C-alpha cells in the first residue's frame, strides 16, 4: 500500500535557479497537455510524494459571461447548483461519496471563471473522475432544489453586504462600465439574486451552453500516474458532447471623461477612495500587460514611495494599495486607499495624481525595476508548495487563455521590461479621462 503520510517533495522547485533567460521556462514543474477529440483539455502535473491529488475543473465562464438582462450573479449561483447531483448520483449520494473519501471539495466563482476543486488521496482518482465527469455531463436537479439553493445564495449575499468594500466594488464597477458585463460584480445585483428562484428554465439553458468540453480545462496535480490517468480521462470525458455557445458580451465603448460618485455606507467606516482606470485585457506576450502589473506595485504597493509617505510618514491613510490584476477582457486598474480623516481625501487624491504624473514623465531605475520583478517571481514560486496551491495558482491564467503556457510567456515578458516600458504603460492607461472615482463615506 502506498504510504499517504509523506512530505510534499518539491524536487523540481528545489532544483531551479532564480535567474531566467528570456526563453526559459518559468513554471518549475514538468507538465503534459492531454486533449480529447471533443476539445476537452487536461494539464497533468505530477508532483510525487504527498499521496494526494488536487483536481481542478476550470470552467471558463464567470460573471463576465452573464450578458443577458437580469441574469447577473448566475455563474456563481450555478456553481452552487453543481453540487445538487445527477440522476445517477443525486446530491446526497454525491456528498456521501465525497465524505467517504475524506476529500477537501469546494468551488468558487470569479469574474472570468468558475473553479471546482477537490483534494483527495490518490487511490480515489477513478471514483473522482467518474463523479466529476458525471456531474459535468449529466447534471440534474429538481425545481425545488433549485429554489432552495437560491436561498443559500441570498444568504451569501446578506453576509457580505454589510462590508463597505462590497458596497464600494458594486458601485465602482457599475459606474465604470456601461456595456460590458464587468459592470456587475460576481455575486450580482440584489434584484437579480431575489429573482433567482424563478429562473429554473434559464438555469438548464445556462448549463447546456457553458458546461461543455471546449469550455472546461482540467488541471490535475500531485501524486498520480499520468499514463493511467489519461486512460481514465478518455474513458470518462470522451463521450461528453461539444456544444459551447459563446456569450454575446458587448464591447465597452471608450471612456471619454472622468466619472465620479460619492457613496454612503450604512455603518461606520473610515472613508475609502477608489480610482479605477480602464486597463488592458490579459495577453501574456504584451509588455503593456506585464508592465501594468509591475507599475501598480511600484507606484502604489507596500514598498512604494507613496505608501511610505502617506501610510508611514504622514499617517494620513490606513493603507494604499493597487489592484492591477489580470482579466480576460479589458478591466480596471484600481488604486484603493482608506483615509483616516475625511478632510484629507482631496490631498490623498492629489498625491495619487502627482505620483501618476511622475511615472508618466520619469523613468524608474533599472535596479528598482528588477527588484520588483524578482518580488513577483518569488511570490509566485513560493506559493507552489503543495498540489492544491499549484493548481490554484494556475487557475486564473488557464481560465483567461485556455493555456498553461501563458504563465511562462507572462514571466518571460516581464523579464524583458525596461524603465521606458513602465513609463509607456503609465502614459497609456493612467489617464484621468479613462478613470472612475468612488469615494465611500460612512455614517457620522
Amino acid at each position, binding site marked *: 500500500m502506498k504510504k499517504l503520510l509523506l512530505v510534499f517533495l518539491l524536487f523540481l522547485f528545489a532544483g531551479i535557479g532564480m535567474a531566467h533567460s528570456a526563453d526559459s521556462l518559468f513554471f518549475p514543474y514538468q507538465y503534459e497537455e492531454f486533449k480529447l477529440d471533443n476539445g476537452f483539455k487536461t494539464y497533468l502535473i505530477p508532483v510525487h510524494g504527498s499521496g494526494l491529488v488536487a483536481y481542478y475543473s476550470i470552467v471558463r465562464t464567470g460573471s463576465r459571461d452573464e450578458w443577458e438582462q437580469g441574469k447577473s450573479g448566475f455563474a456563481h449561483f450555478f456553481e452552487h447548483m453543481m453540487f445538487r447531483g445527477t440522476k445517477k448520483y443525486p446530491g446526497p449520494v454525491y456528498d456521501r461519496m465525497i465524505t467517504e473519501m475524506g476529500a477537501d471539495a469546494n468551488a468558487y466563482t470569479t469574474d472570468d471563471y468558475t473553479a471546482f476543486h477537490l483534494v483527495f488521496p490518490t487511490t480515489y482518482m477513478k471514483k473522482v473522475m467518474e463523479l466529476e465527469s458525471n456531474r459535468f455531463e449529466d447534471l440534474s436537479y429538481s425545481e425545488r432544489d433549485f429554489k432552495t439553493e437560491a436561498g443559500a445564495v441570498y444568504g451569501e449575499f446578506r*453576509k457580505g453586504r454589510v462590508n463597505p468594500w462590497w458596497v464600494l466594488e458594486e458601485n465602482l464597477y457599475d459606474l465604470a462600465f456601461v456595456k460590458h458585463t464587468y459592470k456587475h460584480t460576481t455575486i450580482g445585483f440584489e434584484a437579480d439574486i431575489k429573482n433567482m428562484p424563478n429562473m429554473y428554465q434559464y438555469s438548464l439553458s445556462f448549463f447546456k451552453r457553458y458546461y461543455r468540453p471546449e469550455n472546461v480545462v482540467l488541471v490535475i496535480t500531485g501524486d498520480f500516474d499520468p499514463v493511467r490517468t489519461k486512460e481514465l480521462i478518455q474513458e470518462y470525458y470522451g463521450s461528453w458532447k461539444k456544444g459551447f455557445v459563446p456569450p454575446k458580451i458587448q464591447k465597452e465603448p471608450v471612456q471619454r471623461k472622468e466619472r465620479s460618485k460619492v457613496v454612503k455606507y450604512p455603518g461606520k467606516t473610515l472613508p475609502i477612495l477608489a480610482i479605477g482606470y480602464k486597463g488592458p485585457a490579459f495577453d501574456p506576450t504584451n509588455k503593456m500587460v506585464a508592465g501594468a502589473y509591475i507599475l501598480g506595485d511600484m507606484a502604489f504597493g507596500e514598498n512604494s514611495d507613496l505608501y511610505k509617505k502617506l501610510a508611514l510618514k504622514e499617517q494620513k491613510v490606513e493603507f494604499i494599495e493597487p489592484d492591477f490584476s489580470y482579466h480576460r477582457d479589458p478591466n480596471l486598474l484600481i488604486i484603493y486607499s482608506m483615509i483616516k480623516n475625511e478632510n484629507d481625501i482631496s490631498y490623498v487624491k492629489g498625491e495619487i495624481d502627482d505620483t501618476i504624473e511622475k511615472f508618466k514623465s520619469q523613468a524608474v531605475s533599472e535596479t528598482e525595476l528588477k527588484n520588483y520583478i524578482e518580488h513577483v517571481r518569488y511570490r509566485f514560486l513560493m506559493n507552489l508548495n503543495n498540489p492544491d496551491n499549484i493548481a490554484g495558482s494556475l487557475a486564473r491564467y488557464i481560465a483567461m487563455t485556455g493555456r498553461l503556457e501563458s504563465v511562462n510567456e507572462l514571466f518571460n515578458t516581464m523579464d524583458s521590461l525596461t524603465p521606458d516600458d513602465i513609463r509607456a504603460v503609465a502614459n497609456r492607461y493612467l489617464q484621468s479621462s479613462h478613470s472612475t472615482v468612488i469615494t465611500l463615506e460612512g455614517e457620522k
Partner: protein
Amino acid sequence: MRKFLILISMFLIGGTFIFTSCQKSTGEKMVLYPVQEDPTISIRIMFEVGSQNDPVGKDGLAAFTAAMLTEGATQKLSYENILEKLYPMAASINNQVDKELTVIYGRVYKDHIQDYYDLFRQVILEPGFTEEDFNRVKSSMLNYVENNLRYANDEELGKKALQEFIFEGTPYGHIVEGHVSSLKAITLDDVKAFYKNYYTRDNVIIGLGGSYDSGFVTRVKSDMKTLPSGKNLQQPGKPQVKPINGLEVRIIEKPGANATAISFGYPIDVLRGQRGFYALAVANSWFGEHRNSSSHLYQVIREARGLNYGDYSYIEYFPQGGSRQFPPPNVARHQQIFEVWIRPVPNDAKLFAFRAADRELHKLVDNGLTDSEFKLTSNFLKNYVLHFAPTTMSQLGYAMDDQFYNIDGSYLKIFRQKMTDLSKAEVNEAIKKYLQYKDMKIVFVTDNAEKLKEMLENDTPSPIKYSTPKPEYEKLD
C-alpha cells in the same frame, strides 16, 4: 418552555506527517522540522504570552506589542527600511496573537535566509518602539475594533461576542484585539513594559522548518538566549469560568441589519490529546464540520431549507472561519468551548434557525450517532485530517502545538490512527460526557433586539415560509 436569561447589549464593541523527522528538544524549548526538499525555510518563534496577560484596563496590549514588533522599526532600521529589504525576497514577518500564545513567523526562499534572518532577529531582539510606529499601530487597531468589527462583519462580531460572553470575568474574557477605551489607554511605556516582561528566554519556543542547516539552528538558539530572563513569570492558569444557568442570551442590536448572525456554546473540559477528545472530534465533525457539506447542521439549515450560507460546530477555537478552511496552528488553549456558528439568516427566520440547531443538538446529545453515521464520519476524518497541514509552515506549527498539549508524538498522526481504533460506544460516551443543551450562552447580532427579546421570553412560535414544499424527510417541530 425553556427559560432564557436575556441581555441586550449595544455596548459590546466599544515533517509532515512524517513526524519521525520532527525533533523536539528536551532541554530547550525547540521544535525542528527539517524538510530538505523544501526550497524555503520556515521560522516560528513562539512566546507563551497572549491576551490573557493583558493588564486590567489595557485589553489588547499583547496584540499591540506583537504588532509593534512586526509592523515597526528596530533599533537599527526604520519600518520603511525593513519593508525595502524584505521586498525583493517576497517575504514578510508576521504575528499571530491568541489568549495564551504569540507567534512571530515568516518564510523565505533559502537563498535569502541570511539576509532575512538578520531582519527577523532584530524584530524580536532589538525592537525600536518608536512613537511614530506606536501612533500608526494604535490607529490601525482602533479602526479594526471601532469600524470593521462593529459594522463590516456581523458573524465575526457574533463569534467574538460569544467568546467574551462565555469567558466574562476571566483572563480570557476580552477579545484579543482589545476595546476602544482600553486601546486608547495603552501607552508606549505599556508596550515596552509588556515586551520586557514576556518576551524572555524562558518564555520562548523556537520552531524551524524546511531546508535549514545545523549552523542556522545554532545561530537562532544563540540569539534567543540573549533575551532577558523571565523565570518568575506568573501565568493566570486555566480560566475559572462562571457556571451557565439555563439559556443565557446576549442580543447585540444593529439597526437596519438585513440578516441575523447567531453563535452559541459553552465550555467543555477536554483538550487535544486527552482521552475523549478524539471521540468528541468524531461527533463534532458529524454535527458541524467546518465549511463542509458533510456537516449535519449544514444539511438541515442550508441544504434542506436554504436559510443561509452554512452552519458549523467546533470543539477547539477556530479563528477567521470565514476565510480559513482548516484549523490554524498556535491558537492552543487550556480551556476550550463547544461552539455552534449559524451564518446570517433572514431576520424573520432567526428564531427558527436557532431552534433548528438547538433541536439537532438535543438529538445528538440524547441519541448519539448511529452506526452508519459513526463509520462514515470516522472514515471521513481519517483522510480529511491529511488536509490540515499541507505545508512545512503549518506542519511545524502543529508540531509546536503538540508540545503545548504535551502530546507524545504527532497529534495529526495519532488523530488518524484513532479514527481506525475508535468505537461508536466511545464516541457516544464522549457526547454524553462533554455535550449538553441545558446550559448555554447564545449571541444574536440582529436588527430589533427588543422584539427578539419579547419573542424569546414569550416562547413565540417561529414558523418559516418555505419557497418550496416543506422537506418531507426532516420536518421540524
